[in-house]
């Protein structure tokens, strides 16, 4: 499998009120191989959504490199960047807000074909019908309606259809199921897996729900306050997390099993995460980490390979048996 997307030292900062700077993403590097799904997980404020948008150059990151299929996206301007867009598509969190309330579903899904003047009129109609059926919607019935007539899950299907109509290579899903009910969530997750197989997509799946991320991903990257803590395959990560934050995160997930003791939140994870306006020096998690030492404040841990395919950024990572 070749590397489709390579992100190096991505930094995304933006100005906040009072001359402050929000360090949303501070030097994140990862790669996504063709055909795989990379899960990007973290709590609110960790920078995962900003990372996704920075990859899309919407807006352009403050610094860093994003190489997509051999092309350096950060150097593309105007028309050149526009031409790459059909190959990188995005799905958003709020299903209803992602659709223009005044346009009919058929036009919404067909819009990309109009923009790029793809094929002939009958050809476009066929493509629209194809993707709508692929996502489980009846084109004849749903095409004529407006978004507000649909439920959240159906709106998300429409968004997926719109994203697929140009046959993209990379699909970035920014919290696509967070706003949906549990039963609908399962439908959409299954749908995304099916679409990935059918359209041979590579995906970046951004979410805060650990179980959801594990379900769809081939590899998972955990973010905290703008930095990557740990990257590994789901089974390795969830069974034997190396980073203390990952371990705490996993321990906090409510499990639908009454025999499991809930919320064994270590005392040290109490308190609030630091502000991205003024992140701690060295390791950003050190203020809440039970294992933190002086070295953690002085020296920022870099992402190192602890075992094959398992990267962790920690001076004192948890061993495989801890």
């Amino acid at each position, binding site marked *: 499998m070749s590397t489709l997307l390579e992100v190096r030292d991505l930094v995304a900062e933006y100005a906040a009120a009072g001359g402050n700077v929000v360090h949303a993403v501070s030097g994140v590097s990862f790669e996504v191989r063709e055909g795989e799904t990379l899960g990007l997980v973290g709590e609110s404020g960790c920078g995962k959504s900003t990372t996704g948008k920075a990859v*899309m150059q*919407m807006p352009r990151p403050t610094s860093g490199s994003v190489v997509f299929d051999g092309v350096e996206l950060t150097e593309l301007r105007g028309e050149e960047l*526009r*031409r790459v*867009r*059909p190959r*990188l*598509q*995005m799905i*958003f*969190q*709020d299903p*209803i*807000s*992602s*659709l*223009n*309330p*005044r*346009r009919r579903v058929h036009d919404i899904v067909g*819009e*990309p074909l109009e*923009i*790029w003047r793809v094929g002939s009129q009958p050809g476009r109609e066929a493509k629209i019908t194809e993707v709508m059926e692929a996502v489980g919607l009846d084109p004849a019935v749903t095409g004529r309606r407006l*978004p*507000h007539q649909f*439920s959240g899950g159906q709106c998300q299907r429409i*968004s997926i259809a*719109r994203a697929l109509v*140009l046959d993209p290579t990379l699909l970035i899903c920014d919290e696509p199921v967070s706003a949906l009910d549990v039963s609908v969530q399962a439908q959409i997750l299954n749908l995304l897996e099916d679409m990935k197989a059918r359209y041979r997509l590579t995906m970046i799946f951004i979410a805060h729900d650990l179980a959801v991320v594990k379900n769809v991903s081939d590899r998972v990257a955990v973010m905290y306050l703008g930095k990557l803590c740990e990257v590994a395959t789901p089974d390795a990560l969830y069974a034997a997390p190396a980073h203390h934050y990952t371990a705490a995160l996993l321990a906090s997930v409510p499990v639908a099993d009454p025999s499991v003791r809930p919320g064994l939140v270590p005392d040290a994870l109490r308190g609030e995460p630091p502000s991205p306006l003024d992140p701690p020096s060295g390791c950003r998690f050190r203020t809440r980490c039970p294992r933190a030492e002086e070295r953690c404040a002085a020296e920022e841990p870099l992402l190192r390979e602890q075992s094959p395919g398992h990267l962790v950024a920690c001076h004192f990572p948890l061993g495989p048996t801890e």
Partner: protein
Amino acid sequence: MPAPSPDGLVSEAPAGRDGQTTGVLALGAIVVAGTRRRGLGIAFWLCVGWIGLVILLAVFAGALPLHSPDATGLGPPRVAPGGRFWLGTDDLGRDMLARLIYGARVSMIVGFSSIAIGLVVGGTLGLIAGYYKGRIGTVIMGVVDVFLAFPALVLALAIVTFLGQSLQNVVIAIGFLSIAPIARIIRSSTIAFSEREFVIAARALGARNFRIVTKEILPNVVPPTLAYALVYVAVAIVAEGGLSFLGLSVKPPTASWGGMINEGKTFLPQAPYISLLPAAVMFITVLAFNFAGDSLRTRLDPRGGAA
């Protein structure tokens, strides 16, 4: 009053009112309190009916069997309404009914044309400022703020004095004055929609800015703006009324409602109807525009998902 829809979301309450027309609307609200519905109730259609009637009469005035509005001495001066002259005669023996209808022409032309100017010019400025933000937005809104700071009456006076008194110049003056407030409304509406995810999605699909503005944002901005525009037409009519009362609008003997009020003011004790009839007609017309605009705004905003 908001009621939860089946998916558990509570619909938004209508937005607050424009201070200018509050008093007028209070009266209207009392009148139609019984028919309050979320949809367009009977009161709305009554207002539309009145506006339609006024427009029709204004447009087809020439074809109607009316006396000439300018002909003096058609009858004795200051004849009360009823009898040969349905609405009486004014101080110069002119037919009040004909003058009212021809006066409607002036009000309607000024009302609609000036707001059209405001929508086209102000709308374009607002869209650009709202979509591009940044430096372009700041510059445009800076200019708009300067216009807003001008005392409206003084500016209107200046324009009319400089360009001369005519219907066209009144339209220009009031139209010019409406650019700034409309630009502001459209700009804030544009900003709200530009931040919605479907606009980001359009950009991600590779749509050019022009396409995004015209196909994604404009269709969302236009409906609530049209509702506001009706209210602004009312303001324009009142403005014209004020100007013609001061003798700055169309030159006599052309009939205009404000001019008629002015002409009749010295005869208030003995023939009050000369001033009060045009005042009443203007009042009802302005009320109708205000109420219709407000109803539309209430109906369009929440359903369009602007929240």
